[in-house]
């Protein structure tokens, strides 16, 4: 319990640091009001009178000193009031509410599938040792890992989404036009149909990493004394492997989840913008482009919070299932 509290307290400076960096990054660019007054060439548009610009800047609080703006931003974050988008004037929280489930589902399904496939692969190669199959598999997984996601996404779109080839999957988007007329099951199928290619693209790269980790942790477990004991007791090899070794080797794998999370949030920027999925990555991309600072700060703080909680949960589970971990010592990572 003390450990959990300590972990949660340590999250606070990290979060503050992330939000602070983001804030100053947005502030280093000319603010949106000023930018709108500029032509694309960077020449000042004189049609907007200085008075009007000043009024707008005052309205959005850009005329205050930087440090005041910084604390106002914190006040707003703590009250969960992210104000409105500087570009389309919709409440930021609404935008996040729309985008977050998409990314979250994409990532949860991705992690689920990655684990579902990597664990058997890892165990298989651990048991079969240094066979030709194992080496081939490792090579194949490395090749998968190295395939650039955007390239694979383009090829999949080219050959499976209309054009001159197979027209199996939709080109872009999350829902069909007739989505509202469907019943819940059809809605579910529709979303699965739309998410299929994005999930394929985001899944295949993580196998190499995870299955290798499973393999190492399984090999480690197979070497330990309790496995010898179990074998000496005369248990079948199946029972030794699938009950005794499996239980203990899967513990470290939980922590891997934390390592996967930030990467997945980052990776969803590319995948979501190729498949035009209205998720957090797309929102981040669009808001950074249009310098929509309120949205940038909200997106970054939400994804940072989620990542932090992911790391926290996996650390806590780790400590919970494996009491051997020294709780009071900060881990060396």
């Amino acid at each position, binding site marked *: 319990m003390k450990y959990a509290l300590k972990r949660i307290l340590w999250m606070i400076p990290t979060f503050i640091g992330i939000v602070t960096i983001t804030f100053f990054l947005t502030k280093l660019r000319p603010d949106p009001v000023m930018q709108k007054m500029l032509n694309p060439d960077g020449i000042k548009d004189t049609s907007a009178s200085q008075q009007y610009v000043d009024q707008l800047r005052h309205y959005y609080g850009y005329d205050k000193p930087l440090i005041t703006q910084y604390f106002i931003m914190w006040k707003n974050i703590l009250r969960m009031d992210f104000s409105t988008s500087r570009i389309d004037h919709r409440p930021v929280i609404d935008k996040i509410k729309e985008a977050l489930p998409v990314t979250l589902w994409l990532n949860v399904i991705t992690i689920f599938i990655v684990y579902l496939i990597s664990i058997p692969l890892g165990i298989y190669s651990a048991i079969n040792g240094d066979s030709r199959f194992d080496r081939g598999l490792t090579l194949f997984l*490395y*090749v998968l890992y190295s395939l650039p996601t955007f390239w694979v996404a383009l090829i999949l779109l*080219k050959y499976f989404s209309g054009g001159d080839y197979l027209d199996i999957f939709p080109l872009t988007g999350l829902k069909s036009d007739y989505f509202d007329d469907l019943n819940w099951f059809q809605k579910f199928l529709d979303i699965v149909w739309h998410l299929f290619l994005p999930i394929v693209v985001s899944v295949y790269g993580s196998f190499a990493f995870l299955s290798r980790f499973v393999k190492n942790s399984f090999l480690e477990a197979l070497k330990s004394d309790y496995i010898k004991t179990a074998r000496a007791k005369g248990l079948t090899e199946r029972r030794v492997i699938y009950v005794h070794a499996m239980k203990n080797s899967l513990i470290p794998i939980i922590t891997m989840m934390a390592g996967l999370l930030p990467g997945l949030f*980052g990776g969803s*920027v*590319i995948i979501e913008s190729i498949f035009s999925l209205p998720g957090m990555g797309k929102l981040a991309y669009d808001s950074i*482009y249009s310098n929509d600072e309120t949205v940038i700060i909200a997106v970054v703080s939400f994804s940072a919070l989620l990542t932090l909680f992911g790391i926290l949960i996996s650390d806590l589970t780790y400590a919970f299932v494996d009491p051997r971990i020294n709780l009071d010592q900060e881990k*060396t990572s």
Partner: protein
Amino acid sequence: MIKPDLSAKIAMSIIGFFLAVSIFATFLASPYPLVVFKNNSGLEIPAGPFFAAWSAKTKNQLDKINFRDLASKGKISAMFTLVPYSPYEQNLDEILFAPSLGRFGHYMGTDDVGRDIAARMIHGARNSMLVGMIAVVLSLVIGVIVGSLAGFYGGWVDLLISRFIEIMITFPRLILIMAVLVMLKPSLFNVMIVLGLTQWTGVARILRAEFLKRKNMEFVLASKAMGAGSFRQIFYHILPNSLSPIIVMTTFDVADVVLTESGLSFLGIGIQPPDASWGQVLNISQAYMDFAWWLIFFPGLFIFSVVVAYNLLGDYLRKYLNPKDR
């Protein structure tokens, strides 16, 4: 010691190939001939091999001469480079040509403003390798300094640095890079710097752990007893003993940086035209996806081969340098 296995050999030859391509890019893809044998055109063309590559002074004059035209009309006889096009040269008569062989053919087709893709691939190789090298060297310098300070001194230095590393890891990296690049105006130089400044956490973490493990080992204590200062302990005793995980990490980092650079260029915030980049060709290909397969196939294949080569090399080095992991 284990001998390089087949995949490591393949990886090394791919990396060597692309390094050679990037070093000799000017001699592989250039609109100027390498050697002019006969000149009946009446134009003043400097003689001698490689003249085009060396004579930067006359470049403006040379640009006005279309050597390919002269050669195909038989006015001059010359030997051209492998790809007789410049990566920057636009030709609106040859938009989106499919790959064609033969003399002065576009071996990998052309893009939407008639630039030769093969030439852009060759010069893109140079940019990719350059970004990979410089960004990783930069991240290595930062990572080594930060990691060894944290691990060696411990205490509040370590606390501060560890927090900072955690911030960097938790921050969605691509979003951070995008925000910085959009602010700084994307360019080859800025991409290198920004990637280097965000890539160092892996090396720093590994080094920190290595220093924590080694700083109280006997060989370090012995050197300390003999009067070695912190600098000597760090750089002469602990660091050389922690090299192997860093080498492995660095190799994987190069793959990661090359991939990130092409991803950024693909999104349009990496290397900007007219500078050539593999990811940028893929970006163009999005608009002509249904027929222009050559715009998708070649850049993707090149990115993939470089990334897979560095990853396989990293995997081999890990086995080679760390006997426990074999």
